[in-house]
Each structure stands twice: as structure tokens, then as C-alpha cells.
């Protein structure tokens, strides 16, 4: 790929041909405020927050502007500042001021943009309108939709379309009544939504927010335990509990994508019905027992049924190491090849 050199606020950087100005800046760790851009999606140019001045004359949106060799970009030109401030103030003026109790607090692109631009109470008062009072859609068991927080960036719509090809949601209505909606404006749980949560993880504010989300203490890189795709996951841990699952963007298989089971189907792990001690059947009922008791009984019984009186069924759910030892046990200790698993079911 051929390289070009552009200048952003006096700094020369190199970029790949075909990149946008915003991408080139981000590749060098330079922040240009933006709201409707997402690296996984095609640029939409909707929010106009990412405006810059190009070659000292043209104001353009950096998320759609391809780089050209020798291009000179200013992000702090007075005209750019003025447009950007107005745009951001218009969006913020419409937004509920409930930041401290909001799921996205500290992790919100709108906060970041507002801080960067320096939104003031005076500025907002010029635009302040009544916050729209649309009831929240709480129908999905895993996430809520709070339309009053929505900035209409369309990232969710494009995610569901471009990445998932499901098209469960779209814009509905026009002008100030615009909102994100399902076909026929039904609750999302009654739409064709597959609850993958891909839109939720990309929403820059908390208009789409996971229900009862807990911030993990730390994350552990692992693999989803459901299906054979083997998506990379980051298990979010708090104490001895898994409280979240995120897609591992560095995993070559799923590059961050997950389905509903992988992302939200983790509550079985800390389920109260998990088995926690061995059980031995006595007089027809299973009773708690110690490991020693259980192992002694098994060793005695298995020793008496070596050879073809014995069979083991391993599992497609457990690790390679687990399976290896079970077949080794069956063959080397029990003396039979009666070992299979549920591959066929």
C-alpha cells in the first residue's frame, strides 16, 4: 500500500492511501472529536462533529475525507471551532443531564466530545429544549433502550445492517421526532432482533445499555464454551464471579463479534445449582459425600469391571487435556476401547 504524508495542526504524519483523515489521525493517536464514526463501520458523516479545515479553505468532515499527499488539515481553525461547538451544543442541549447515574458515565463519547469542545451552560441555554419523553424499551432481557439519551448517530442501525445483516432496527419518523425503532415500532423483544448485543457495545452513549451491568475488576482472555466457532472472549471478573463477557477483538476467529449465547449466556457459571461436592446414592437418594469416599467407591467398582464390561463417554464440552486423560484412563487403566462422546448428536 502506498503511503502519503499529510499535516495535521502543523504535525507531519504518514498515512496509507485510502484512509480517511480521521483514521490517519487516530492511527497516530491524535484525537479529532467524533460521534458517529466507528472503526468497524463505513463512515456515515452524520453528526458533523468531526469537522476540520482542509488546505486552509474547505471545511469538511474528517471521517469521510480521504487523505491526499501534501494535504494540510487544521482541527483548531476558528471557523471549525465555531461549527463544532454549535453542533455539540445542539446535541448536548437535547440530552438528559443525569451523567452520575448513567451506565455510560466515564465511558461516554458524548461526555468526551463535550469536554473537549468545552460546552458551557450559557451555550446550552441558547438551545435548551424540553428533553423528549419517550418511554424506555425494557423488553429485551439483556439490554434497555433509552431513547431520551439517543444522539441518533446511527451506529446501532449500521451495526445491525452492515455487520450483522439482521436489520432489526432503523430510523423512524422525521425531524425532531426521529428515533431508532423496530419494524412497526414494536418492542425490540418482538422484533427480529437476535439479541447479539453488537449494537449495544458500540452505542457511544447509554441509549443502548446492558441491564444491570457491573464493571469488572479485571478481565481474563479465554474462549467461549458454547459452540464450535470458538470465539475469543474476555471474561470480566469481580471477586469469584463472572460479571461480563466481551468479544476479544484480537482473536482471529471472531475479531470481537459474539452471539447472544456467548455474550449474555454466562450466568450459568455462578448459578446456585452448580454441583459443589461429590454425591453418592444411598437408599435411592443422592447424598453429599467426601472426595475420598467417592473415589474409594469408584476405584473399587471400576476395578471390578475392567475390560469390555466398562465404557466411558467423554464430552465435546470439556478441554482437550480432559478428553485426553479420559481416553487414556479408559484404554490404559480399564483395558478397553469403549470410549466415545456425543460428537454425533
Amino acid at each position: 500500500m502506498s503511503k502519503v504524508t499529510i499535516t495535521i495542526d502543523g504535525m507531519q504524519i504518514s498515512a496509507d492511501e485510502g484512509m480517511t483523515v480521521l483514521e490517519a489521525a487516530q492511527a497516530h493517536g491524535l484525537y479529532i472529536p467524533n460521534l458517529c464514526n466507528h472503526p468497524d463501520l463505513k463512515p456515515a458523516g452524520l453528526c458533523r462533529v468531526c469537522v476540520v479545515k482542509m488546505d486552509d479553505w474547505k471545511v469538511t468532515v474528517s471521517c469521510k475525507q480521504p487523505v491526499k499527499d501534501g494535504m494540510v488539515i487544521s482541527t483548531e481553525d476558528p471557523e471549525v471551532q465555531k461549527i463544532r461547538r454549535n453542533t455539540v451544543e445542539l446535541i448536548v442541549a437535547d440530552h438528559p443531564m443525569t451523567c452520575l447515574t448513567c451506565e455510560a458515565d466515564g465511558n461516554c463519547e458524548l461526555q468526551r466530545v463535550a469536554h473537549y469542545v468545552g460546552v458551557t451552560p450559557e451555550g446550552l441555554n441558547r438551545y435548551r429544549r424540553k428533553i423528549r419523553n419517550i418511554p424506555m424499551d425494557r423488553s429485551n432481557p439483556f439490554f434497555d433502550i433509552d431513547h431520551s439519551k439517543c444522539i441518533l448517530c446511527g451506529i446501532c442501525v449500521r451495526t445491525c445492517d452492515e455487520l450483522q445483516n439482521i436489520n432489526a432496527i432503523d430510523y423512524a419518523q422525521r425531524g425532531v421526532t426521529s428515533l431508532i425503532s423496530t419494524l412497526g415500532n414494536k418492542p425490540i423483544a418482538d422484533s427480529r432482533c437476535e439479541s447479539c448485543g453488537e449494537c449495544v457495545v458500540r452505542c457511544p452513549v447509554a441509549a443502548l445499555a446492558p441491564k444491570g451491568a457491573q464493571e469488572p475488576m479485571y478481565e481474563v482472555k479465554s474462549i467461549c464454551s458454547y459452540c464450535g466457532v470458538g470465539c475469543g472472549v474476555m471474561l470480566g471478573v469481580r471477586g469469584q464471579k463472572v460479571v461480563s463477557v466481551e468479544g476479544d477483538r484480537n482473536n482471529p476467529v471472531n475479531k470481537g463479534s459474539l452471539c447472544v449465547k456467548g455474550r449474555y449466556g454466562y450466568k450459568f457459571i455462578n448459578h446456585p445449582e452448580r454441583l459443589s461436592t461429590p454425591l453418592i446414592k444411598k437408599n435411592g437418594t443422592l447424598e453429599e459425600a467426601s472426595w475420598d469416599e467417592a473415589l474409594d467407591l469408584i476405584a473399587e467398582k471400576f476395578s471390578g469391571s475392567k475390560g469390555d464390561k466398562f465404557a466411558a463417554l467423554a464430552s465435546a464440552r470439556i478441554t482437550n487435556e480432559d478428553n485426553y486423560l479420559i481416553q487414556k484412563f479408559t484404554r490404559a487403566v480399564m483395558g478397553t476401547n469403549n470410549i466415545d462422546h456425543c460428537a454425533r448428536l
Partner: protein
Amino acid sequence: MTNSIAEIGGAATILAIGTNTTQAPPVLALQAKKAAREGANLIVANPKEIDLCRHATIHLQHRPGTDVALVMGMIKVIVDAGLADMDFINSRCENYDAFVDSLSEFDLPSVEKITGVPGELIGKAAKMYASEGPSSILYCMGITQHCHGTDNVWSLSNLALVTGNLGKANAGVNPLRGQNNVQGSCDMGALPDVYPGYQKVAKPENKLKFETAWGVSLSDQEGLTHSEIFDDIHDGKITSLYLIGENPYLSEANANHAIESMNRLDFLVVQDIFLTETAELADVVLPAASFAEKNGTFSNTERRIQRVRKAIDSPGEALPDWQITAAIAQKMGAKGFDFDDESQIMHEIASVTPSYGGISYDRLEGGGLQWPCPSPDHPGTPTLHLGKFGTPSGKAQFMPLSFRDSAELPDDEYPFLLTTDRSLFHYHTGSMTRRVDGLEQLDSEEFLKINPKDAASLGLEDNEVVQIASRRGQTQAKTKVTKICPPGLVSMTFHFAESPTNVLTSPALDPVAKIPETKVCAVKLEKA
């Protein structure tokens, strides 16, 4: 899979047959949908109008169990139209002439009669697959769970070979393995006829190799398969069963037989994370760690070995499965089970399994490795069969085939054909997903999907309880009246203990793979 998941996105034509890909496995379906969006042809062959059809160029809605006729019909069109890749066939395949002879029964009018698909559409799909490559075949249980499942797979392999779509990038024959580590359990030799790495038990040199490695003498008899094990238990020949992480009470075809068998055992040990329906039958239940509580590796459907890492402690005294098995072995006085951790087990796996020879935990820190990976400096193998095939001659075999009916077809008494599928929101017998409230909320009970015409003829409304009976058992579920099913075909999942679908399904086995025919059986329906 012969090729990698990422290669699906690069195919020019995708044939998705016997796979309800957007329901399982959904993240892989993203690749197929993306390819279709970017202009690839997507041919969906499925008796039902599944969700993937929304993205399809062509939907071949063949009758369940007629895959061999459909695919061989496609091949005949390709050969007759001169679209066979003769260079590939001559240089890399064997047995082509005998195979071509077997095509004569698959003329389009006959195939149309068997499959119910218009011949013209079959012809169009065949030519598309043959001439607009690279073409990739995706298949799943809709192909394998038949009494002629092996023939179904052979037919797909024939199709790929005749058009040279094997052993090259973005093509291939790609079974989508359902469960997270089904690939790995096979690789590890949790199979009755092979040691780890598919080394045949029947070959004396393999037996000798493992006797030497493990320091014991081994049986030279191949073992029994899953269904045969239950038969032998039933007949009193097998008296002890060690069952790990599996719930045959719900998953086994003709489940009543499996339950009866387990009740006859002298000694049943079940090792699991929950007290499943099967565990309730056990003499001893052992508490196992979940994936979040242990270290190890899973091998995915594209043969990629990836690291699973411990995130939390297990509840109470639960232990990783390997530690439990090792403890039993040691109690019985066996040697060779004293591992300190999982990486030592992988070390032993690598030493006896040629395709895993180059695998060690250090090397899996990045994105994992795809086997064959025979040595520590080998980069892994994303695409199989590139220069040659894994057969003794290095060439691929064409397999002459003839069409056989499913074991049990509808008749006057049992007039509907029942097929099974899966829900996006549940996994297998639901022992995990049904304990996740949200998933349960999204999908909480079994539905019998039925065509509006059939529902009307039986006087059934949507959402009405219906009694479903086969020759083997009966159950109830609510109806979902939907055109997804063509007339005559009804469909259920098997996730719900309240409506145990597998009491209905047929135990007819594929003679080679010993897979039961859970995709086709005859049932009758009555308003409950």
C-alpha cells in the same frame, strides 16, 4: 473444516446445505452473510425456509433425507455440461470413471421427483457452483444425522472434487462442528476406533506405540460407539459407565431406550457441572469445574487450538475434569496420571499425536494454531490438502453412490415427517442456557413448527398444545404455525426437558458413522 472460517468470506459461491447457520453457529454465519452482501452467490439447500434464505441467491428446498439425490443430480449437470475440472480430476483424484457410471440414475427428472426441487433450479445452482468459484460448501447436522449420513458427506466431497474446489483457498468442504470442543474430543481420541490424532486402534504399530508411551498393554479390539454402548448396557454386557458432561437422557435419539439402559447399569458415574436429568440416575455424581474455572485448550471447527484460561475458582469442591480422572486412576494404582498442570498434559499429547506435535502453551499465546502442526517450528495449517490429500496414495477418492430412502418415512398412520433443529438462544439439552434467565425469557418452551395448511387440516391454531407421537414415544408442545415448514414437514428443537423431542426420534444408524437419524422420523399429531 478443510478451510478456515475467514476463508468463507472470500468464496465466490457458498453452498450451505443442512445447516441453519444463523441459529448455530451464528458468528460464523456472519461470514456467509457478509460474502453474500458483497456479491457472492449463496445457495441454501434446506427443507425449511430458514433465516439464511433471506440472504440467498437460490434456495433449494429439497425433501429431508434426499441430499444424495440433490447433490449427485447437481454433479451430473456439471459433468454433462462439460464443467468438470478435468485437470484437477486427472492429477489429484482417483476412481472417477466408476463414479461417473454411478451418475446415470441421477438424471434431472428423477432427481426432481425424489427431491421435490424443480430440475431447472438444480441445474442453475449446479452451474453456479461449478463455474463461479472458488466455491465453499458448509454443512452441519442436517447432512450427518441420517441413516445415510456418510453417503451425504461423500456426495459433497464428490461435488467439491469434480469442480476442483478442494485443496485451495476460499473453497473446501466445511463441516461446522456444533459443540465447542467436538473437534478436540475427536482429535484426542475420545473415539472407539482411534487413538489421539486418528491413529487407528486396528493397526498393530499404533497399539505398540501407545503401549510403549503409556507403559501398559492395550486392547487390540476396537471399542463400541455411543449408540452401541447403550445397546450393550441394555443387554447387560456393559455394567459400568463413566459419563462426563453429557445428558443422554435428553440428547440421545430414542431416549427412552437410553434411560432404560442406564437404569440397568450396576454402576453409573456422572461427572458434570449441574445435576442433569442423567446425573439423577447415577450412583456417584462428581462435581466438575466449568470452562471459566480451568485452564486448557479447545479446538474449534477450523482446527484451531486455542487457550482456555481460568478466571475464577470453582464452587465448593468441584475440580477440573482431568484432575478427577487422574485421581480415579491414581486411586486404582495406575501410573502416568501424575500431572502438575494442564501444560504437562499438552506436552504428552504433543509427544504422541503427530498433528499436535508442535503445540505447546507458549506457542498458543497469540491467536492459537491450526493443526496439522507437526513440529515446534511449523506455523499451522489454515487450509488442508493444498498439494496432496491425506490418503495413502495422496489422491482423493471419488465415491460412487446410489440414493437410499430414510429409514422411516411418513405413512397413513404417522403422516408427518418430523425433523429437528436448534434455537439460537439455547444450547443442546439446555443444562446451561436454560439456567440463564434472559435466554429462558427469550425462548422458554418447545414449539412444533407446522405449515398453515397442515395446521388448518388438523384444526390447530397457532400456540395451541398438540400431542406428537411416533412409533417410539410421545410428547406435547405448542404449535407455531409458520410457512418456514413446507406442508407435510414439522420441526422441533430438543432443548426442553418438558417436551423431550428425542423420545420421538429414530434410532436408525448410519452404518459407518453410527449417527442416529434424528433428522427424519414419522409422527402423528393430535390436538391435546
